[in-house]
Each structure stands twice: as structure tokens, then as C-alpha cells.
């Protein structure tokens, strides 16, 4: 057996009973071949992993001090902010960490969209990613309820009310979710329980995501398959060190928000204790939900809005088949590349609409942007794939990165 990492007798003893060292080595070590041309956009996956761990660690410590009770939750958060040693730092890291987790995952998803990482043979990898995204949304939503401020309470009221749109059983389902006839103490307690559970579900999904990744291996900016060893570099030390740079940048950005602007991404109303008798003038979700909030409100019908919003995420499951192009990377797809950036801008427009009250021009822009969101997947993806003439693909990754000569040498 050649296990370059297993150097001592103790390691050998463990290895023969549980091959943990070769497992690590095959996962993130010298035995994991990685396309040599991965750029920094590929760092966002591991950054998202770091963000998840950060959320779990800070969350576990916060849960030691937080009290999930309607009469005490708000006070306990202030207790964390004022009396717990470095409690303010833990809470600000957790709140801003959630936002940056979403930033990382959104960039990660757009990277996948641009370079065609969802296409065969990576459909399951893509699916697990969508499941992680859905679980993240549920976790983040319930986490925002826990401080039991005004936005917690009213955000929870608006979102849980969506379930009343389900035909026939809507009311019953919503009552069951609330644990009562409105958002109240029982809702808070079950949300706390689920908010603690779901991150570990995400962790498990992440494991499946990585398993699928290590089976089909990383896509790359050229979108062509790895043909020879010349196309790859061992994950360690090349991509471990490259990922470290990404981690450093991530923590610098996190530190800026935590230490110098910790409340910017929150809402001032959440420093007002929850009050079922006073509705805030604007109920807005956290920024990372705004595009979907805009889609929800684009339809005048409640059920229609809910279906459309859910559809906006579920449609991602079928894009491996909606995209008819045989070329993965948008780098070689001159027409699709333009549409990709229009889609990005359209997403930002939806976010902007979600932040504004549904009135006047906002409604019309919101509807157009919503229609375009779906048109991108249902019309643009198949049609452009059929008619576009892609640019010629390079022979191999090595040929494109190292020049033709060294690629020939390899053959």
C-alpha cells in the first residue's frame, strides 16, 4: 500500500483498522486530482463550508445563553450582548456570518450557472446543492425569529401565513406549524429546536454534496473534461493553499461587518421587542430573501405567489435538462454569456423590488423581472443551446493553460 501520508507506526496501526488517513488523502490531499485551472471563483465552495462551521460553533455557544421563551428571548439576547464575555462578538459573528454564508453560496451558485457545473455528470451534485440552499433558507428564517424582536415576529407571521394558501388543509397546517392560532411562544420554541437541528442536516447534505463532487470531480473554467494527469494538480498543496487565501479574504470581510458595521444588514425594528398589537410599517425579510420575496409578491393571488416562489427554486432542479448546449462553460458560449449577465442583473433587480413596498412602478418592474427569471430557464436555456454556435474548445486543460508544446510532451 502506498499511503504517502501514513508515516508513523501509530498511523499505520490506525490506518489498517480504519483507513482514515488515506480517506483524507483521497478527499483533500495529494491523491485527489484537481483541474489545474480552477480560478478563485472555485474557492467559494470551501468558504461556504467554513461559514457553516462558523455558524455551528458560534450558534452552539449562543444557545448556552439564549432562552427560547416568548417572555425571555429578547432579554436573553440583550444579556448575551451586555453580560456574557464576548457575547456581542459571538452574536454579531453569527448574524453577519449568516449573511456572508449566503453571499458565498450565491456566488457559488452563479459560478455553477456560468461554467455549466450542473451539467452531466454533475446533476446529483447540483441537486444536493439546491437542497442545501433550501435548508439554509429554512434555517436562516427560523434563526431570525429567535431574538423575538418586531421583525422576528412579523416576519414569522408573514412567512408562516403563506401556508394558509395551501388548498383545503392550509389553515390546519398553519395552526399545526404555529402550535396555536397565531405566531406565539410555542412557535418560538419549535423554531429554536429546528434552528438547532437543521444546520446538522445541512452538514449531512454537504457531505453528500462532497461525495458526489469527489465522484464526478470538479468542473473547471474551461468546462472540458480532464483527459490526462497533466490536466490536474494534487489538491494538496495546490488547492489547500489557494483555498487558504479565500478563507483569509472571507474572514477580513466578516471582521469588517462584525466589528465596524454589525447592524447594517439587520433591521432596526428587531431591537424593539415583539409586539403582536403593533405592525411595523414595512415588513421586510433579510436581504438574502428579497429576490424571492419579490417573486412572491409579483402575483396578486396568494397561492399563485407561493407556488411561483417555490417554483423559482425548484426549477433549478431541472436545468441540467433545460440547458441544451453541449458546451459547459459560458466562456465558449458568446450568446449565452450575455444572457447570463442579464440574468444576474435581473436577480439584483428582483432584490431591489423585494426591498420596496409593492406599489406603483415597483409592481410592474417586479412582474417583468419575475417573468424574465423564469424565461431565462424555460426559454433562454434551451433555445440558445440549440441555435448558438460555440467557440472552439481547447484540446485539453493542459494545452490551454500550459501552452500546446508541454501538452504534446505529456502525450
Amino acid at each position, binding site marked *: 500500500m502506498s499511503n504517502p501520508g501514513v508515516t508513523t507506526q501509530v498511523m499505520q496501526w490506525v490506518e489498517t483498522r480504519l483507513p482514515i488517513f488515506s480517506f483524507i488523502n483521497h478527499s483533500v490531499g495529494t491523491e485527489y486530482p484537481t483541474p*489545474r485551472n480552477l480560478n478563485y471563483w472555485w474557492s467559494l465552495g470551501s468558504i461556504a463550508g467554513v461559514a457553516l462551521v462558523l455558524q455551528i460553533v458560534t450558534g452552539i455557544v449562543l444557545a448556552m445563553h439564549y432562552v427560547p421563551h416568548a417572555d425571555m428571548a429578547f432579554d436573553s439576547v*440583550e444579556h448575551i*450582548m*451586555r453580560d456574557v464575555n464576548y457575547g*456581542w*462578538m459571538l452574536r*454579531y459573528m453569527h448574524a453577519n456570518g449568516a449573511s456572508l454564508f449566503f453571499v458565498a453560496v450565491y456566488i457559488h451558485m452563479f459560478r455553477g450557472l456560468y461554467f455549466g457545473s450542473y451539467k452531466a455528470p454533475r446533476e446529483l451534485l447540483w441537486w444536493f446543492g439546491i437542497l442545501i440552499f433550501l435548508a439554509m433558507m429554512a434555517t436562516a428564517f427560523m434563526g431570525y425569529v429567535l431574538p423575538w424582536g418586531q421583525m422576528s415576529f412579523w416576519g414569522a407571521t408573514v412567512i408562516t401565513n403563506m401556508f394558509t394558501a395551501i388548498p383545503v388543509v392550509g389553515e390546519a397546517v398553519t395552526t399545526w406549524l404555529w402550535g396555536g392560532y397565531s405566531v406565539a411562544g410555542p412557535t418560538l420554541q419549535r423554531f429554536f429546536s429546528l434552528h438547532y437541528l437543521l444546520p446538522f442536516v445541512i452538514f449531512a447534505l454537504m457531505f453528500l454534496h462532497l461525495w458526489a463532487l469527489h465522484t464526478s470531480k470538479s468542473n473547471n473554467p474551461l468546462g472540458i473534461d480532464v483527459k490526462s494527469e497533466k490536466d490536474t*494538480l494534487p489538491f494538496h*498543496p*495546490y488547492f489547500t*493553499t*489557494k483555498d*487558504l*487565501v479565500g*478563507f*483569509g*479574504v472571507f*474572514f*477580513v470581510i466578516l*471582521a*469588517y461587518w*462584525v*466589528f*465596524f458595521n*454589525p*447592524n*447594517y*444588514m439587520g*433591521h*432596526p*425594528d428587531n*431591537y*424593539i421587542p415583539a409586539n403582536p398589537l403593533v405592525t411595523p*410599517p*414595512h415588513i*421586510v425579510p433579510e*436581504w438574502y430573501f*428579497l429576490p424571492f420575496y419579490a417573486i412572491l409578491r409579483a402575483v396578486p393571488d396568494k397561492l399563485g405567489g407561493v407556488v411561483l416562489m417555490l417554483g423559482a427554486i425548484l426549477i433549478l432542479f431541472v436545468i441540467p435538462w433545460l440547458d441544451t448546449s453541449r458546451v459547459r462553460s459560458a466562456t465558449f458560449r458568446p450568446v449565452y454569456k450575455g444572457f447570463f*449577465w442579464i440574468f*444576474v*442583473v435581473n436577480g*439584483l*433587480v428582483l*432584490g*431591489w423590488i*423585494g*426591498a*420596496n413596498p409593492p406599489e406603483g412602478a415597483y409592481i410592474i418592474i417586479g412582474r417583468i423581472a419575475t417573468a424574465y427569471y423564469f424565461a431565462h430557464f424555460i426559454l433562454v436555456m434551451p433555445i440558445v443551446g440549440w441555435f448558438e454556435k460555440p467557440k472552439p474548445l481547447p484540446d485539453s486543460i493542459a494545452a490551454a*493553460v*500550459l501552452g500546446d508544446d508541454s501538452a504534446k510532451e505529456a502525450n
Partner: protein
Amino acid sequence: MSLNMIKKASVTLAATLVLSASAALAAGGGGPALKTQNWSFNGPTGTFDRAQVQRGYQVYSEVCAGCHSLKYVRFGNLPAIGFSEAEAKAIAAEFEAEDGPDDDGEMFMRPARLSDAMPSPFANDKAARASNNGALPPDLSLIAKARVGGADYVYSLLMGYSDAPEGHEVAEGMNYNAWFPGTQIAMAPPVSDDGVEYADGTAATADQQAKDVSAFLMWAAEPKLEDRHRTGLKTMIFLIILTILFWLVKRRVWKDAH
């Protein structure tokens, strides 16, 4: 930098701008522009001006505390704004706190201690409304974080009283204030020239009091701000150096890969 990178960078920048604009829009209410002040606690190295915050505490205790509670602040927090522990104890001792039950099962009053919260002026919200024409004076512990604009909002509101514009009906017992949502506020103008006599001899103009108490309320809402800024600067320097080192390591490792 290739053209492609410039394009990517500009899209990222545009995205950031749109996001921040939408966040600002989401946050912004009506009302005129805030009277933005140059607070000592602004910016990454900002600190609380001890003398100002102490004066602000005086304004709070002599003016605001008649109606507003400050329940998340304890007397024991006062040394953080420059009072000595003995001074904080003396301030606490001027108030009474309920304790008990004693051995007879009775609640009793005793002089307040450092571990006691600032006493609330009313027994409960109903009592507060009954004494204030139906309006509920909010607890002020978090007010500087619970309003868009923070300390600038508090200051603008305190200095924002004026006669109602022509044709603007103001209900009985209410006051016109353009900065208050709905422009009608139950609170009478709280600060006036020489409404307090400052212990440190500063001229107690209404403007000065409004500034001082706004700074005090910012401290009450975010008492760990100085800690946060100090730790933040150290953390930032550490992280930036660490990231540069990571980058140098990466470059060294990758040197033979091309």
C-alpha cells in the same frame, strides 16, 4: 488586469451598490433628512466622549427618567462611562429597589445597589399609558439602535419640534415633530435651554442637552462599542497580514506548477 477581470469587478461593484441601495431603501422611512452629527463614536476608531456621556446621563436622569425606563442598564455599568465606583454606588443609593420576600414573606424596599437596573418610572405599561395621555413612553435602553439613523435620529427628534405647518391638524395633547413617524408625538419638547444645570459647568443649551443625551443613549444601546472597535482593529491587522502570508505561501507553492 485583463478586460474580463475588469468586467467582473465592475459587475461585482454594481451588485454591491444595488444591494446597499436596496438595503437603504428598505430601511428608510419618511420624514426630512436627519440632522447628522459628527459623533465621537463614529468611524472604526470611535470612542465615547466620557464627559459628554456623563452629561447625557444627567439629562436622562433629570429629564427623561420621569417617563422612560432604561431597564437594560445597571448602576454597575456607570463606571464604564467614567464615574468612579464610589460615585456609581452613591448614584445608586439615591434610588430604591424592591427586594424580597423577607423572612415574613413580605417584599420590601432598600437602597439600590450596583447590580440593580435603572428603576422604571411606572409599575407597568398600563400605568405608563395612564399617566401619559394614553401614549407609552418606550424603554430607552436600545432606542439608539431601534430607529433608522440611530443617535442622529434621537438628536433630530429632540431638536425637531416646531409649529405645525399651515393646515396641519395637531390633535389635543399632541405635538408636531416632523421627524416622528406620523409627525404627531405625545412627548412634549423634552429639552429646553437651561433645563438642567450641568455638573461640569458646560452651558446647558437645548442643543447641547440633545447631543449629550443622544450620545448617552448610544452608549446605553451599544455599551461594548469601544471594545468592539479596539478588538476590531487588532483583528483586522492580524487577518490582513495572515491573508497576505497565505497568498505568499500560495504563490510559492504554485511557482513550479506553470
